[in-house]
């Protein structure tokens, strides 16, 4: 029983990271109907940038903030320059451009920062000693989860209660009508990309202390995030977040008791295939109710 509880708690901790990346994926998907295959590599690159700033002497949270801002700007630029022209192109073209971005960011990380595995500092105390909450979580896990939840709450409030957030949602749902009320839809899409890039950067910086930083850090995580986003509903941010947490728990419990740790990625694959076949809208994706 203690083992299950442990796995559950650990699952929620990693689930928070999956939830964040899932949120980034959903933000872009809702606006553009593109799956951002490059999300993981962009997050890894941002994490390297943060490490460089920290190693240059900047305090952790300053480096954190600067990285988040730089990632936001990068996301906006990528949308504006590379993806806007692909908006009306067939799926193969947009998938291709995103895969190209994946390759470029992956290479950039390796080229600029090397392929050696690096440690990334945590702003919370020890990273591995599980001393808190009755010995189930480490300080970092607890702190990271808190930061993740704070970020998710912030994003939620932003979308619900600010004018810009409402405009971004409107632009994602109905670009034509959005233009008619004066919303510059292109700008909203760019902001969406910027926001997703920023969220990805936060996720990367929170997971790096645990899994160590190298150019392939986010590969598996991206897959779990996809699974979480699909499970929760790829057009529903709240659902995607819940899906991310769920996948974290499933991964840990499944890995410990069902398939063994070696097949955990296969679990993600099974979740993805299962959701897409059984209920493509995900658990919470809104099957739209309309009356003509």
């Amino acid at each position, binding site marked *: 029983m203690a083992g299950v509880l442990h796995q559950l708690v650990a699952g929620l901790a990693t689930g928070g990271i999956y939830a964040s990346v899932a949120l980034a994926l959903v933000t872009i998907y809702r606006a553009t*109907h593109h799956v951002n295959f490059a999300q993981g590599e962009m997050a890894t690159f941002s994490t390297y940038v943060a490490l460089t700033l920290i190693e240059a002497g900047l305090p952790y949270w300053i480096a954190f903030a600067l990285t988040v801002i730089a990632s936001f700007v990068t996301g906006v630029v990528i949308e504006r320059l590379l993806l806007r*022209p692909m908006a*009306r*192109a067939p799926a193969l073209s947009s998938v291709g451009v995103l895969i190209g971005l994946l390759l470029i960011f992956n*290479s950039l990380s390796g080229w600029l920062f090397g392929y050696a595995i690096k440690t990334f500092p945590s702003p919370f105390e020890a990273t591995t000693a599980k001393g808190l909450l009755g010995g189930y979580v480490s300080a970092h896990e607890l702190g990271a989860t808190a930061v993740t939840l704070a970020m998710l709450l912030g994003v939620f409030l932003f979308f619900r209660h600010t004018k810009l957030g409402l405009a971004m949602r409107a632009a994602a749902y109905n670009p034509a009508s959005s233009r008619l009320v004066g919303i510059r839809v292109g700008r909203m899409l760019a902001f969406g990309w910027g926001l997703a890039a920023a969220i990805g950067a936060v996720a990367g910086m929170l997971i790096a202390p645990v899994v160590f930083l190298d150019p392939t850090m986010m590969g598996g995580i991206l897959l779990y995030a996809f699974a979480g986003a699909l499970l929760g509903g790829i057009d529903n941010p709240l659902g995607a977040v819940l899906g991310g947490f769920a996948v974290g728990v499933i991964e840990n419990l499944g890995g410990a008791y069902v398939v063994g740790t070696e097949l955990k990625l296969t679990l993600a694959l099974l979740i993805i295939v299962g959701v897409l076949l059984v209920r493509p809208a995900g658990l919470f994706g809104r099957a739209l109710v309309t009356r003509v």
Partner: protein
Amino acid sequence: MIAGRAALLAGTTVLLAPLFLFTDYHLFELTLAIATALAILGLNLVTGHTGQISLGHGAFYAIGAYVTAILMADYDVPYWATLPASAVVCAVVGFAIGLPALRLRGHYLALTTFALAVAMPQILKYRGLEGLTGGVQGIVLAKAGPPFGLALTPDRWLYLFALAVAAPLFLLVYNLARGRIGLAMAAIRDHPLAAEAMGIDLARLKTGTFAISALITGIAGSLGAIAVQFVAPDSFPPLLSIFLFVGLIVGGIRSEAGAVIGALFVQFVPDLADQVSKAAPGALYGLALIAVLYLMPQGAAGALRRALAPLLHLRSGGAPAAGTGGRRANPGGTRHVE
């Protein structure tokens, strides 16, 4: 037709010349290039012709390689006899994947096949299957030698063997693409609803295409395994599927020549770029991919065709743009009716 015969002669010369001109090592690399070209040819069937985006074809390559390896190592099957077995296994797996793939399209399908590619190494490493797959260490294969005591080095023989296997498959796809089935595939790619209304059995054609595509890529994997004499889970990472995709787009979709060009690009770019930095090949792939999608969506083959058309009086037939619908990307953005 003189032009046709001249082309055939020239082509055969070009293909056989390496036997006399190149070293064993270079022939080994060319053999791998042939395997890669065959793999891309397979991918072309689903992604290029039928419009089903697959980022997971490396999985079929891996399965073909492993079928060959297991049969050769555990059952002493001669290398050439493993090919039919590999073909059958991969066709079945391809069909099995093609069935659920019917429900998915565009980015969703790309995502699912990508998940397959990411999960594949883990599946191959799985301890439960270790007896079969040799686990992390993989399987070592014996060298394939020339038959009938022919006076050829194994590498030269394998090059010929690979050509002999690939050529009929290329011909098969060439004819398939230009016949009735090719038209049906184009219809499914561009106007699925209309295609269905016209009586084309979408499900059968799509799953059938997946099966044949997997078969071809699987045979490519077998060839690769025979040449390299080694299979291991880490030989088939998700990047393999991505490189096949890059080769497809850069070479030119829906083009058999494009498969060859794409394979040469994917195969030899690392050789050159590695000298600059370990990161250079990936960056070059990414840049090439994006550049091609923006500047010449028909890939290198398309560009060549356009350049050579006036010289050879070729019909400039062929699909207008990468992907479905023949609609080009609009740089700069335009106002549109929604």
